[in-house]
């Protein structure tokens, strides 16, 4: 039933319901409700879709808006519109350009976001990069974390090998112009977190309770209660660190 040869294409243009099932290519242009699981080789959703069950697809592209009632499992998923997943999300490559609201956990190989990413539970990736707004309720665990701040990001905990947090360069440029021309208060761009733990940490504009790592660089605009390091430590003169300890 679910081998590739017995699959058909699913096309919904206009307003329609589908009981779900196995498909080759699923295209949704209008408003659609998929009443159970949807398993497709590729999914393209330009309109509004609601999948009441689980979504499984080799590739998925959400340009309109989508709600998945269950879990999502994709090789490659691009969200240019808005998506909400009530369950967990698993993807090899997950790209967010619009908004993603994950009520469960997210596990990805590559996670790149330029939009709004909200994860209620833990978020895991081999590589995580963001130039948007991020809110993670649990632990953000990634081999490489690269966060370009834009607006306020809040992540309960960050853990990984290499962790970089700095302000988005365009924002930095804008801020320079603003402060020179309009003497406005600097543009926000802030990360609020409890703990950051990693091997190689370099952060800016971060408010954290504790930062622990091997090599730690605390940059401009940081306010940290406690820093623990084993190797090199560098603190920007504009950063506030309440206490710092060399371990080992």
């Amino acid at each position, binding site marked *: 039933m679910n081998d590739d040869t017995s699959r058909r294409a699913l096309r919904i243009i206009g307003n329609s319901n589908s009981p779900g099932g196995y498909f080759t290519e699923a295209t949704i242009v209008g408003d659609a409700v998929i009443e159970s699981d949807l398993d497709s080789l590729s999914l393209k959703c330009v309109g509004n879709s609601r999948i009441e069950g689980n979504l499984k697809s080799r590739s998925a592209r959400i340009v309109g808006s989508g709600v998945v009632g269950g879990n999502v499992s994709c090789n490659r998923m691009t969200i240019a519109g808005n998506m909400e997943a009530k369950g967990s999300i698993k993807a090899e490559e997950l790209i967010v350009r619009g908004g993603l609201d994950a009520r469960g956990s997210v596990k990805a190989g590559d996670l790149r976001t330029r939009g709004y990413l909200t994860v209620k539970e833990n978020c895991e990736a081999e590589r995580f990069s963001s130039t948007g707004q991020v809110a993670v309720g649990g632990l953000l*665990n990634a081999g490489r974390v690269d966060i370009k701040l834009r607006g306020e990001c809040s992540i309960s905990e960050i853990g990984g090998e290499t962790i970089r947090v700095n302000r988005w360069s365009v924002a930095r440029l804008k801020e320079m112009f603003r402060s020179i021309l309009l003497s406005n208060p600097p543009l926000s761009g802030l990360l609020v977190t409890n703990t950051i733990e*990693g091997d190689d940490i370099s952060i800016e504009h971060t408010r954290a309770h504790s930062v622990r790592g*091997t090599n730690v660089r605390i940059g401009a605009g940081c306010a940290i209660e406690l820093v623990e390091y084993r190797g090199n430590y560098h603190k920007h003169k504009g950063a506030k660190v309440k206490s710092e300890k060399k371990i080992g």
Partner: protein
Amino acid sequence: MENDLISKKDLLELTGISYGQLYRWKRKMLIPEDWFVRKSTFTGQETFFPRDKILARVEKIKNMKEESSLDELADILSPSPKDIEITAAELNSGSIVSNAAVELFQDVFGLREHFSFPDILSVYILDKMLASGDISGEEGRVLLSTLEGHLDSFKGQNCDMIFIRKLGTSVCVLVSAPNQISFDKGARIAGRLNVAACIEELKTKLLNGGLANGKTI
């Protein structure tokens, strides 16, 4: 449950691993989620681990890392069954389980040419229970039918197998672990095994015995 905990900081200092390694192992599911115990201390929230378990696990990962990749390691340590199939003759060769256990299994489910991983696991658990003298051969049948019928529903989840006896009647129970479970006074726990630990042992044995080589589907 465990009173003997070790803090994350002490663990790193003791074993010489880095934060990055710990987080990577967690991502690869080499360290189970339920070993991360959150506790409030005067410095805020801290993470603790069950001391003996985590130290043994870190040692194991460090030792095995040279031979196998992290993904292979995750495969061995994960509680979800691996795609292995071995023939009856290989299972009978006696290096993994005793012949008595295999015979009992075949008595219940009929003669088989090939054993899938769940089958091997059932035989393995049966063999352990028989070898320790905790259960009799007749009770082994009860055990086998419980495992056959319900172990599947715990897929990928840690569970305990508990054998209870009361007034000459024996009952086999599968409960998700870690969990607190209590019985009335007349009941006696004849035997208790952690299924995830059994899977880990069995996979290691299969790999070391060379039986799984080239037989992985």
